[in-house]
């Protein structure tokens, strides 16, 4: 059943239809928020808050965008509110307390390779936590949630050109943080995207 049909049923008072909609989008919304908050408990609460906001706001959703775009925007707003409350936009906890480091062992990898992969997972999580909020956000939308540039532009309400340049800066910053954490050699360290971050 497509989103529009579900939403029509929800507006007629069908809570089961809303349950189906939550089920469909809970994982991308949770991931989007988890990388912004840095911990699972806050992510769970904010993801629930996002869906409750969606429930309350559905009457004002007129399909001017895809439902998913609208929902990701709600999630982004929830994160902004949260980060503002925390007053620490650039200092999300470094605690690697989500399950990222507990990978399922891959039988085709040697123990050494598995250890390396695990170290890399821990490092990437730490590096992400050190990035500016807008860089964490865009990397999550693109790489973890697999949104294309056009949809990211809609979610963030910026031109596609901005998505491109912001993603380039975010990847550059991520690579820099990985190097600082000792997890990535620098083939050459002087490369620049031409637009330095503030």
């Amino acid at each position: 059943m497509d989103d529009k049909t579900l939403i029509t049923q929800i507006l007629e008072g069908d809570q089961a239809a809303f349950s189906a909609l939550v089920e469909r989008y809970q994982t991308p919304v949770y991931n989007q928020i988890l990388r912004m908050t840095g911990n699972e408990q806050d992510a769970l609460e904010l993801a629930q808050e996002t869906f409750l906001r969606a429930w309350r706001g559905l009457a004002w959703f007129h399909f001017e965008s895809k439902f998913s775009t609208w929902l990701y925007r709600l999630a982004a707003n929830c994160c902004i509110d949260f980060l503002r409350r925390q007053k620490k936009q650039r200092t999300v906890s470094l605690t690697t307390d989500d399950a990222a480091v507990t990978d399922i062992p891959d039988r085709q990898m040697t123990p050494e390779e598995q250890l390396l992969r695990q170290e890399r997972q821990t490092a990437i999580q730490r590096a992400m936590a050190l990035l500016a909020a807008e860089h964490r956000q865009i990397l999550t939308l693109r790489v973890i949630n697999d949104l294309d540039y056009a949809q990211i532009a809609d979610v963030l309400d910026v031109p596609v050109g901005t998505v491109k340049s912001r993603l380039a800066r975010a990847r550059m910053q991520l690579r820099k943080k990985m190097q600082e954490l000792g997890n990535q050699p620098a083939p050459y360290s002087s490369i620049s995207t031409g637009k330095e971050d503030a």
Partner: protein
Amino acid sequence: MQCSEAFELLCGHLDHENTPQEEAALQAHLQSCAGCRALLRQLEENDAALAHLHREAPPQLLTGVMERLKNPEPEKKRKKWHFHFTAIAAAAALVLLIGTGAISIFDQGTKYAGEEYAAADAADPAEAGQGEAEFSVESSDTTKEQKSDSLQLGAYTPPNADVAASEEKADYQAMADREGCDILVLHDGSAAQLPQLQNPEKMEDGSMRCTLAAEELGSVLDSLDPDTYEYFPCSTGQENPVIVLFPAGGA
């Protein structure tokens, strides 16, 4: 092609967003540049590790949402703003004392100058001591009711309507300062149709709210009749995101 120019195309390559021409130019550059080939491998490794951070939503997400829809907790019924009990008590007491002339220091000035002090007290919860009271700033009627309930001040009533309106403004200003954002109160509900104010969220008391990026504020204010809104900038003075409130009854 310079290596610095290649970087955005490397990202486009990873994201499958390059045009055929861009991809051809990138591949030509990669053939002659070992540094960019190594960089591409690093970016691929980082992306792969990032993608591996993908998590399934925990089951309690769905169950929690549906539970809260079926059994809304009283405190979740509308957006709450937290004010310290003693801050409000002090502010209310100050207004009362001033109103009755019990504090002589203000006698030589304007009689209700205490409104400003009340606002300052409410805006500075750090000095307010322990205990919290909650009330909504989005519905003036509810605000008054809940204030009285929470504070158990019994017969307390605002000395006059002007003072009540000033208190409400003080509440908005205190909220702006505490939340670190600007507050835009729109008394005309039709403003919700403005394109910049997409997806207002409806509260159960009939009020609505949404968040606006600071750079959009100018265009929104330009679209509004000055008599239909009030604006409370955060005292930090910098550009802040704006919480837009549509009080109940404005629609």
